[in-house]
C-alpha cells in the first residue's frame, strides 16, 4: 500500500488544481448547475484533450494515458474540491470502468479511444427505481433479437443520462435472478425505444436521468450472462472514485470554514478563537484526514488490484460519506446565518455531500458490506 504520493503525482495534482481553480470557480459552477445539460463542452474539451483526464487510467493501447487508480483518485479529489460540473464521473469512471471490466479486447478497441479522448460522452445505467446498488436491483431485461438485443425496463439515477452520447446498460436475461444472467450492453443515447427524462435533483451539480427502455436495440459487450463480476468490480471502482471525490470536497469545505473562523469577528475576537468553533474544526480535521487515508488506501488497493479491494471500497465509501456530510454540515454551522444563504457556497458542498451519501449506497450499507467482504 502506498502511503505517500510520488513527486510526479504531486505535480499532476498541482497542475490540475491550478487548472480547475481557474476554469471552475464557484460562479461557473453556479452557472452550469442551472443549465439542463450541466456542463460546458469547451471545458470538457480542455479537460480531455489538453489534460487527457478522461483516459487517465485507460491503458495506452486503448487510447488512454495508462496511469492507475491512484492518479484517477487524485483527479477526482481535485474535481471534488471545485464541484466540477462535467460528465467526468459518468463517462471516465462509470462507463469506462464498465467497459474495461466487461468488454472484449475488440470491443475495448472500438469503444474506449473515443471515450478516452473525450469525443464521446458515455454513462452507465445500472440502478433502477428500486434504488438498490447491486445486481439484485436489476430488473431490466435483455432479450436476443436479430443478432443484437432488445432492452425493456426502466433505469433511474443515471448520472448525466439525459445528455450522454452512449449508454452502457446493465441488464439481465429474462427469468434470471441475483448475480446470474447479468450482461452489459451499449446503445446510443438517442436510440429509438429509449426515452430519457431529467430528474429534479437535490444537488444541482449532479444531473440524473430516468430512462425508459421499450424494446430499444442494444449491443452486447462481453460474455452474455457473465457480467456480475464486472458489475461488482465497476461498482467497487465507482465507490472508490466517489470516495476520492468526496474527500476533495470535504477538505475544501473544511478549509472554507477555517478561513471564515479566522476572519469573522464576534464579541471582539475571531470566532475561531472560541473553543466551540476551534474544537469543532479540530474534530473535522481528524475525520477528514481519516477519510483521505481511506480513499488513498482504497485507490492504492485498486491500483494494485489487491485482494482486499472490495472491502476497502466499501470502507472508503462509508468513511468518506460520513466525513463529507459532517464537514459540510459543520461548515454551515460555523458560517452561521450566512452559511444558510444561497449566495454562500456552503450549500453547494452540503448538497453534494448529502447526494453523495445516498449515491452508490448509504454508509450503513457499505459498513455492512465492509464486514462481509472482510470475512466478518
Amino acid at each position, binding site marked *: 500500500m502506498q502511503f505517500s504520493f510520488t513527486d510526479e503525482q504531486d505535480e499532476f495534482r498541482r497542475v490540475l488544481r491550478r487548472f480547475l481553480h481557474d476554469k471552475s470557480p464557484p460562479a461557473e459552477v453556479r452557472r452550469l448547475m442551472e443549465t439542463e445539460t450541466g456542463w460546458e463542452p469547451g471545458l470538457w474539451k480542455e479537460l480531455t484533450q489538453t489534460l487527457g483526464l478522461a483516459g487517465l487510467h485507460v491503458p495506452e493501447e486503448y487510447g488512454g494515458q495508462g496511469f492507475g487508480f491512484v492518479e484517477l483518485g487524485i483527479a477526482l479529489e481535485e474535481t471534488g474540491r471545485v464541484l466540477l460540473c462535467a460528465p467526468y464521473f459518468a463517462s471516465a469512471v462509470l462507463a469506462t470502468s464498465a467497459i474495461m471490466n466487461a468488454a472484449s479486447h475488440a470491443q475495448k478497441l472500438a469503444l474506449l479511444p473515443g471515450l478516452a479522448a473525450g469525443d464521446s460522452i458515455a454513462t452507465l445505467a445500472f*440502478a433502477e427505481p428500486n*434504488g*438498490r*446498488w447491486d445486481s439484485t436491483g436489476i430488473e431490466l431485461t435483455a432479450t436476443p433479437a436479430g443478432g443484437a438485443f432488445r432492452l425493456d425496463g426502466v433505469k*433511474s*439515477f443515471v448520472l448525466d443520462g439525459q445528455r450522454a452520447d452512449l449508454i452502457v446498460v446493465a441488464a439481465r436475461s429474462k427469468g434470471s435472478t441475483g448475480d446470474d444472467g447479468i450482461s452489459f450492453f451499449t446503445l446510443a443515447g438517442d436510440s429509438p425505444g429509449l426515452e430519457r427524462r431529467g*430528474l*429534479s*435533483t*437535490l*444537488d444541482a451539480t*449532479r444531473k*440524473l436521468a*430516468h430512462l425508459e427502455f421499450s424494446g430499444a436495440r442494444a449491443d452486447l459487450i462481453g460474455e452474455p450472462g457473465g457480467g456480475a463480476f464486472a458489475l461488482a468490480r465497476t461498482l467497487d471502482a465507482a465507490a472508490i472514485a466517489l470516495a476520492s471525490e468526496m474527500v476533495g470536497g470535504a477538505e475544501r469545505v473544511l478549509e472554507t470554514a477555517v478561513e471564515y473562523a479566522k476572519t*469573522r*469577528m*464576534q*464579541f*471582539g*475576537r475571531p470566532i475561531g478563537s*472560541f473553543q*466551540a*468553533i476551534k474544537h469543532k474544526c479540530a474534530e473535522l480535521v481528524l475525520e477528514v484526514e481519516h477519510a483521505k487515508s481511506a480513499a488513498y488506501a482504497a485507490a492504492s488497493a485498486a491500483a494494485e488490484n489487491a485482494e482486499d479491494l472490495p472491502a476497502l471500497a466499501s470502507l472508503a465509501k462509508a468513511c468518506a460519506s460520513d466525513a463529507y456530510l459532517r464537514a459540510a*454540515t459543520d461548515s*454551515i*454551522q460555523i458560517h*452561521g*446565518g*450566512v*452559511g*444558510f*444563504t*444561497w*449566495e*454562500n457556497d*456552503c*450549500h453547494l458542498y*452540503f*448538497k453534494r455531500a*448529502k*447526494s453523495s*451519501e*445516498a*449515491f452508490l449506497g*448509504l454508509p*450503513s450499507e457499505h459498513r455492512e458490506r465492509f464486514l462481509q467482504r472482510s470475512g466478518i
Partner: protein
Amino acid sequence: MSAITEEDVRSEAGAWLASHWSPELALSEWRRRLADSGWGCPSWPVEWHGRGLSLALGDVVQHEFNRVGALGIPQGPGPTLAGATLLEYASDEQKRRFLRPIITGEDTWCQLFSEPGSGSDLAGLTTRADLDDDGEFVVNGQKVWTTSAHHARYGMLLARSNWDVPKHRGITYFVIDMHQPGVVVRPLRQMNGHASFNEVFFTNARVSSANVIGGVGNGWAVALATLAHERRMNDVRRGAGPAATARGRVYDEYRAETASVMEPYKWYPQRAGRLDLVVERAQATGRDRDPVVRQAIAKLLILARTAEWTARRARAARLLGRPPGPEGSLGKLAASHIARACAEVHTLITGAAAMLARADAPLDGVIAEVLISVPAVSIAGGTDEIQRNIIGERVLGLPREPAEDVGKPFRDVPKNLAG
C-alpha cells in the same frame, strides 16, 4: 376593587361577543371594535386598548373567542413584538401614534436587529444613526434576516448612536418609517430556495428624534424586552385554527391576511424535520424491518418524546408558580438535535431517492426540503453554541468567558468590516 373572577370575565366577554361579533363583518370593522372595546388585547392596560386583565384571565377571554369562532388581532411581529415593547418603553405620545394601527392591522411592522456583521453578537451592530443639525437621525448600514420587511410600514431599528462608549451603551432603539427613499429592501434567498427574509439597506435614511424609544443610548434594554417577547411568541405560534375553513366575509379577509403573514414560514415544518412522517415512511418503504433503521427511529422518537415531556414539565411548574427549573431553556437545543436526527432517519429510510428533489422526490419533494432546511434550526434564533452558553451560564451558573469587547469604547473593539 374586588377581584375579578374567571366567571366574571367569561360572562362579560360572552355578552360582548354576542352583541358585537359577526362572521359577516369587514375584518377592518371587527378590528376597530376590538381596539375600541379592549377585548382584542385583554391583558393590555385599559388606557391602551386593553382590559387590564392577568395573563391567565386573558386565556379565558381567548377561550370565549374560540368558542364562538371570533377572530383576534393580527398575527406577526406588530402586536406581539412592537406593541408589547412600546407598552413597556414608549412615551404616551408614541403609544398614541403607534398602538392602535397595530391592533387594527392598518400598520404592519418589521424587526431590524441582525446585521451581516453581527449575528450571535447582536450588540456588536454597526448600523449608524447620526444626529444631524435638524435634530433628525441619519441612518446608514445594513440589516438582514428581516421577515416581511417588504410590506412593513414601520421598523423596530437598532442603530449605534455613540461609538465612544462600550458596545451595549451606544445603541438607540428607533421606530423608522420604511416608506422612504433611503430604505431599500431586497429578498434574501436561502439554501433551500425560499426567500423568507429580507436584507434592508439604509442610505441616509432619516428618523425623527420623536421616534426614539426608551431614550438615546438606552436601546439595548429596549431590545432585550423585544427579544423576550419574541421568545414567548415562538412558544405559542399557531396556525389559523378553526378560521382555516369557516365561512363569512371576516374569515375570508382574515385568511388572506394570514396567508401573507405566514408565507415566510411555510418551510418551517420541514426545517423542524417532519418527525410526523418518520414512522409512516418507514412502514411504507419497508425500512421499518431493518434493525439498524429501527434503532435510529427509536432514538429519534425517544428524544422527541422526552423533549416534549420536558417542555410540559416546565409549563406545569410555571403554572404552579414554582421557580422555573432548567427545563425551560432546553427546548431550542433539543429542537436542533431532533431536526438533525430526523434528517438522518429520513435519509436512512429514503436511500437512493434522497438524491432527488421536487416532483421526482418522495412526497412531492417534502423529504428533500427537510434535508436542505434542517441546517437552519441550529442557527436561526440563536445558534446551538449560543444556547449552550446560555444553559451553561444562566441555568448552571458557570462563569462567563473573559470579555474582549465590553468596558472599552466600541470604536476600539475589533469588528467585521461593514459588508
